[in-house]
Each structure stands twice: as structure tokens, then as C-alpha cells.
């Protein structure tokens, strides 16, 4: 038994060492974020430290899962939230969150520096737009060059026979870019015709996988060293710069590019969770989230565009990323009203 006791003692020690990390400083607030938000060790987290230094408010980042899970949890706990501020509600989830009264309205300092295209979506100031990006078809530049084929010009080309069996997309029921792409096709083909479009897409050999990681890392041929076989994938407008920045050895050109006319605009919001006990501090944090200090760090950490219009973009973004001048969009209220039905119809058309 002695050895066992020693193990337990050791464990208890480890535990007690670990738990003092959650220190009880006077003003500590919790930022609830989705799972691609880095919890530590990036310049984004360093920026949060700056906030703590200047205001005395400590910020604890908690990860609540993917965006959908995070919003589901927030809706379940509306009024008695898990944290004080939430980061990363996107426009496909916006209305649902607003309907359940998850957030406490607040118009932060700096609201006017954000493009009105974005702020118009939240006239009641329940949430603040913090960043945006596009979900677009990415293509493998080299594949098209070596096969002597022009990359498709837009969504209509994808159903043509020369592009048969080339595209991989995500299931809109389980993936946020997948949902965005479904929205893109609905916005493009219209509510009456999108089902025919997908019927044609299916006939043209579209592959569906559960999420972005499988689509991009395993099935797409364009990312360097990939074993995947499909040169067209639904990804982000900012994926090409990521390919350049995270290349090893360094490279000066992107192996992939974006088809601009296929882009659907994703806008992310942050806001004060209704029921917080630290409303004043929470508001200060939202102010900070749209300050130039924090917004500056967004492109290279989350691969999104800052919501502020006065932020200088890194060179990889200006060179390789695409931000569509006239992106496809659907009104968040319409998305909220039809999302489940669209998803179910899509499932019947494409998967059954």
C-alpha cells in the first residue's frame, strides 16, 4: 500500500500546484472564446496582457468548444453565463443568440471606427463586430497549371463536366465553413434554385467531409505535402497567406489561391454576456477588443480581417488573401429562420 499512498500524495501535490494558477485578484474577468482562439503564447495573448497592465483587470480565457457549441452553451446559460465576455459569435449564429437574449447591449468606444456594413447587422448594440473574413473556394494552383485547365471562375463552373470530381466541401450541419458555403450557394442561386444547384453539384462528384480539417488537410491537394487528391476545397479567403507564413522552408508565393466570386462573408462578434457580475470591467474589455492594439494582432493570429477600417494589414494579406469586394451575404435573421430547414434539405439532396 505504501507505494500507492506515495502515488496519491504525489498526485495531490501536482493538483495543488496546478490550482493556484486561478488566482483571485480583485478584478478578474473571463473571456469565453471558440476553440481556435489561442489560450496563451501568442501576440494576441500578449495584447490581452497589455490590457491587464493598463486597467488592472485580469483576463482569463476559457475555451467553450467550436462556435456552434459555444453559442449553444451560451443560450442554455443565458442570464447566468459561464463568463463575462464572449468572443466569436458569427453571423450564421447571430440571430439565435439575440433571440435568446444572451447578451447585454453595449456600444463600445470605437464603434464608429468599424465599417457600417458590419455595425448595421446589430442595430441594438447587443454585440460588437470584431472581425470578418470570407469563406471561399480555394484551388491548387499547380494542379490546374499542370493539367492545362483554367480554374473555375465561379460557382456556376463547378457543375461543369471539366470540373467533375475535383471539389471537396464540408457538411454544413457540422462545419462552420461548410455552412457558409451552403449560404453562398443559396445567396448565389436564390432560394428557389439552390437545390437544383446542389443536385447538379452532387452529380458532378462533389465530396463531402465532416469538417475543415479533414477537407483541407487530408482531401485537398493544394496544401504543401498533402496526400489529398482534390484541387478545389471550401476554405477561407485568408488560407493562402497562412500557407506562406507557415511554410517551411520559407516561400514567397502561395501554392493556393482563392476564387473571389465564391466568397461568403463571415462576420464575428463579441459582446458582454447578460448576467455578468463584472459589467463595467466586461465593457472595458469589449472596448479593448476593438482597439487598434488588439485589432492589429487579429490577421496573423486568427487569420481574419479586423473590423476596424484603420488597421494596416500585413504584406502576406495584401498580397495573397482575398477579401471579396461584393461578397455573397444573407441577412442573419433569414439565416436563423431557415438554417435548420436548409440543412435538412441539403442533407436529403446531397447525402441521402
Amino acid at each position: 500500500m505504501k507505494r500507492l499512498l506515495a502515488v496519491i500524495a504525489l498526485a495531490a501535490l501536482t493538483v495543488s500546484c496546478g490550482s493556484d494558477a486561478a488566482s483571485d485578484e480583485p478584478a478578474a474577468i473571463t473571456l469565453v472564446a471558440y476553440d481556435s482562439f489561442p489560450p496563451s503564447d501568442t501576440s494576441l495573448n500578449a495584447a490581452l496582457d497589455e490590457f491587464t497592465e493598463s486597467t488592472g483587470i485580469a483576463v482569463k480565457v476559457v475555451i467553450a468548444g467550436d462556435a456552434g457549441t459555444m453559442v449553444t452553451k451560451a443560450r442554455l446559460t443565458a442570464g447566468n453565463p459561464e463568463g463575462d465576455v464572449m468572443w466569436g459569435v458569427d453571423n450564421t449564429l447571430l440571430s439565435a443568440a439575440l433571440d435568446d437574449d444572451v447578451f447585454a447591449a453595449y456600444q463600445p468606444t470605437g464603434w464608429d471606427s468599424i465599417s457600417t456594413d458590419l455595425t448595421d447587422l446589430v442595430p441594438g448594440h447587443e454585440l460588437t463586430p470584431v472581425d470578418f473574413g470570407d469563406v471561399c473556394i480555394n484551388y491548387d494552383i499547380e494542379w490546374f497549371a499542370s493539367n492545362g485547365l483554367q480554374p473555375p471562375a465561379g460557382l456556376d463552373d463547378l457543375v461543369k463536366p471539366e470540373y467533375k470530381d475535383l471539389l471537396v466541401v464540408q457538411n454544413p450541419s457540422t462545419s462552420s465553413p461548410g455552412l457558409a458555403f451552403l449560404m453562398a450557394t443559396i445567396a448565389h442561386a436564390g432560394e428557389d434554385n439552390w437545390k437544383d444547384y446542389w443536385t447538379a453539384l452532387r452529380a458532378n462528384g462533389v465530396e463531402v467531409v465532416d469538417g475543415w480539417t479533414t477537407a483541407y488537410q487530408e482531401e485537398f491537394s493544394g496544401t504543401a505535402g498533402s496526400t489529398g487528391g482534390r484541387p478545389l476545397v471550401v476554405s477561407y479567403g485568408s488560407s493562402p497567406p497562412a500557407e506562406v507564413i507557415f511554410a517551411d522552408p520559407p516561400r514567397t508565393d502561395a501554392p493556393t489561391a482563392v476564387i473571389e466570386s465564391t466568397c461568403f462573408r463571415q462576420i464575428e462578434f463579441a459582446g458582454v454576456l447578460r448576467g455578468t457580475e463584472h459589467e463595467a470591467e466586461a465593457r472595458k474589455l469589449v472596448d479593448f477588443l476593438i482597439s487598434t492594439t488588439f485589432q492589429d494582432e487579429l490577421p496573423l493570429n486568427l487569420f481574419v480581417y479586423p473590423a476596424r477600417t484603420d488597421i494596416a494589414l500585413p504584406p502576406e494579406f495584401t498580397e495573397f488573401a482575398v477579401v471579396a469586394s461584393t461578397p455573397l451575404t444573407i441577412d442573419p435573421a433569414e439565416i436563423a429562420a431557415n438554417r435548420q430547414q436548409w440543412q435538412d434539405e441539403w442533407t436529403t439532396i446531397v447525402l441521402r
Partner: protein
Amino acid sequence: MDHHRVALNRVPRWFVAALAIAPVLFITGLYAWPVTTLLLTTLRDTTGGTSPFANIAGVVWFTVWQATVSTVLTLIVGMLPTYVLARFSFRGRRAMMAAATVPFVLPTVVVGAAFLALLPQSWHGTARAMIVAHVFFNLAVVVRLVGSMIAVIPHDLVGAARTLGASPVRAARLVILPLLRPALWSAAAVIFLFSFTSFGVAKLLGGPRNPTVEVEIARRATQLGDVGGAAALSALQLVLLAVVIVWTARRQRRAAVELHGATAPRSPRNRGERIMVVSVAALIGLVVGTPVIALVSRSFKVGTSWSLSAWTQLGGGEVRPGAGLGVDPLASVGASLRFAVVAAVIATAIGFLAATAINTSPRLGRLLDAGLMLPLGTSAVTIGLGMLITFDTPPFDWRAQWWLVPLGHALVAVPFVVRAMLSVLRSIPADLRAAAATLGAAPIRSWWQVDARALRRPLLAGAGFSAAISLGEFGATTILTRSGSETLPIAIGRLLGRAGDLPRAQAFALATVLLALSTAIVMASGSHEQLGSGDRA
């Protein structure tokens, strides 16, 4: 007469109750309460809207179908390796046992990626791919549960059949198979349970066309926000699984025979046996080794060329000024280990108390045993969301407490610890307890002397297995909100969610670290020898 004697030496009733208090509190507090709360809250809300059962028949049918095929295939594929590992001693046997166990504790994200890289393109997103992965993951269950039964079938029992005129095939069919039946049923029940509730594998390899009930529950809850529908499906799944488990448990009891003594494995004696051993070892090596090699090699492949940079830059801060991956490998290892240690301590303590209570009081024990199994059949999303809305008011506002995560892991690990301990406890001859009693030990004292001591090895093994389960974030405990440093599986998932060569290679480097950690823990604690086996301590 016999009964009378046993009754005299029985530990007092209050002592059994005292043992059972903690496990009962554990399962009611952390499982029954949250899940019931969720069901009550959300089902009350879903008065309108579409019924969650509207389009579910196809999903349920597919789930049952694939789980059945996975179970039968795993049993068939696992038989020969199990027989060879249980019957023969040869160099590398221990390593083979460990190798067969490791897949079971590997995180699905990682193995899923390796399988995608290995399987032909046409298999991606098919039920076939999913079933192959289920067989891979569950081989360990057969090797353990059936292997431990083979190990107690005396060599001479087959010899007796042979001298009576049974050919080797008839001896296997008429003697070995009937004796293995209880073990086969219990292995089948476990594999069916895991395949039925398949989540990561179903999503990654089965693809969107092949959702299981578990995947559908998660989709409804997290993507559609239809928590009520998810809870209803979860209840349906639990009822279905309960029926299957009760049915197999009954078949198992009916087929049960008593076998005494263990048969030491012996070295292969002739050419045929040697060929069998070598080919099985090669097969296990191939089956377990291929995905592992695929995984490790991808950490050394950045872009199109071989490179160490994923490893050298792991945790190296910024790739260029302002752009970092935010991965701190040491901190993730630390966070993962911390969760693992806490989960292991809790699971072992609860499992120890539960197993002893179950063994000393068979009738009530069966109830506790079944209760502790429930979390395995319940969608993790349901448990997670239940905890979220239950532990939300002081003094129970534990939602963002870091220890809720290892508690969730322990919930999954306890049934395994109980299994490992029960098999040892049940192998303690009643005579030994009686002997302790006649030597003057009071019942409680003799319980301590005999039972508690015999459990030392399975305790260690159970702790190791629980730690490995926690490391791999078995099930989908990721639904729980977490703060602080991210664990290895979470960090791997986040890296795989990035475009670019380097994040991907680093994800596989971290996966390699995770693999090494799990293997080391499983081997060091002897989990690969003890778990579910009837080995004598």
C-alpha cells in the same frame, strides 16, 4: 451448510454500505443528476417544433448495423491473435500485448488522420472505413477479455478431447468455443457499446453520409442548438444500449462455467506453432504499426520534404513577428498529465471502493455495477451540457472549474477500473478469506488482508488505464468548457485547424508525444497485462 459458513465470515452490512457511499455519490452527483436535469429542462421546452425522432430511424438502423458488423468482425479478426498471445510465450509477447492495447487509448483525432492517409481515397467517408477503424480500436478488448479466459482453459482439456477422438477443429468447436462463450459475450457487449456510441471515428472516417446516433445528438445540440431533441435522442440511445447490455449479460451468465487455475503460456513447440506465432506477431505489428508509423513520419515531413523543423520549432514562439501558433508543448504535456493524474486518482479510488462493494454484496452490487456503466452509453454532449446547466449556481457553480474535465474522464474510466479489479477479486478463493478468518482475523481485517492486498496490481493497472483514457480525451469530453493551458488533444485539434505545412507537421509531432506518453503509461502500470484479465495478483 456451505451457506451458513460463508454467512459467518461475511463482512457486516454497514461496511458494504460505507464502501458504496462514494461511488454512489459519484455516479448520482456527476452523472444522474446533470443528465436528469437536462432531460427535464429541455424536454419541457420542446413542445413545438419537429420531433427529434422524425428522421432518426435511418440513423438508428445504420448505427445498430455498423455496430453489429464491427463487433462480429472484431471478434473474428481478434481470435487468432488472442489465442496466440494467451497460449504461447515468446520473446516480445509483452510488447505485443502492449501494442494491442495502445490503439484503444489513442485519441481518435490522431488515429482518424492516420487512417485517412492510409486508406484509399475511395474508402474515405464510407461505413467500411469506419468499421475497419472500429476493429483496430477494439482489438484490445478481445485480446483482454477473451485472452484472459483462454489463459484459464487448461491445455489438457483440449488434450482430453483429442484422445477421445476429436480432431483439432472439432476440439476447438466443441470444447474451447463453448468455454469462451461468456468471455465472447462480454467482449461483444463492450465492442458493441463502443461502436454504437462511436463519435470521432464516425465523423472522421464514416463521413457525413454515415452519422451515428451519437454524432446526430452532437449535431443537434451543438450546431442546431436543439438541446431538447439531443436529450431525447440521448435517452433513446441509452434505452437501446441498456437492452443490449442486459441481454448480453444474461447470455453471459447462462454460459458461465467455472474454470480453476491458470495455464501458463508455453513456448511454441513445432513448426506449425512457430509459424502461427510469427505470423500473428507480424500481423499485430503491421496493424498497429502502420498507422503509428504514418503518424510519426508525418511529424518529420514539412511540406514535401523531410525535416526536423516541426520538432525544433515546437513551442518556439513566433514563426515570424506577430505570427505564432500559440503552442506550448511542455505546458500541454503538463496540463494533460495533470488531468490524467487527477482522473486516475479519482477513477482508481472510486473504482476500488465500487469493485469491493460489488464483490462483497453481489445483489446490490449488480445495480451499482450497471449504474457505473451508464456514462459509457450516454452521449458525452448530453453529460457535458447537463453539467453546464446543473452546476451553475453556488455552491455548485463549477462550470469553468478545471477539475470538471478530469472528473468527466474519471466517469468514463471507472467502469474499466471496476472490471479490472472485479476479475481479480473474484479469483480470490473464498478459502483464502476463510483461512484468514480462522487465523483470528475479524471479517473487516481479513477483507483488508486478503482483498485489498490482492488489488494492488489491478489498482495500478486501472490507474494507468484511466490516465491513458484521460490523455486521449476518450469520448467527447471536449464539450466541457476549459480554461488555462490546453491539453495535447486540444492543441493537436487546434493545429490541425490551421492552413500551412508547419502547423500540420507540429500537430503530428504533438500526436507523437501523446502516443509515446500513453504507451509509456500503459506499459509502466502493467495495464496491458492486467486489464480485464483473470491474472492472479
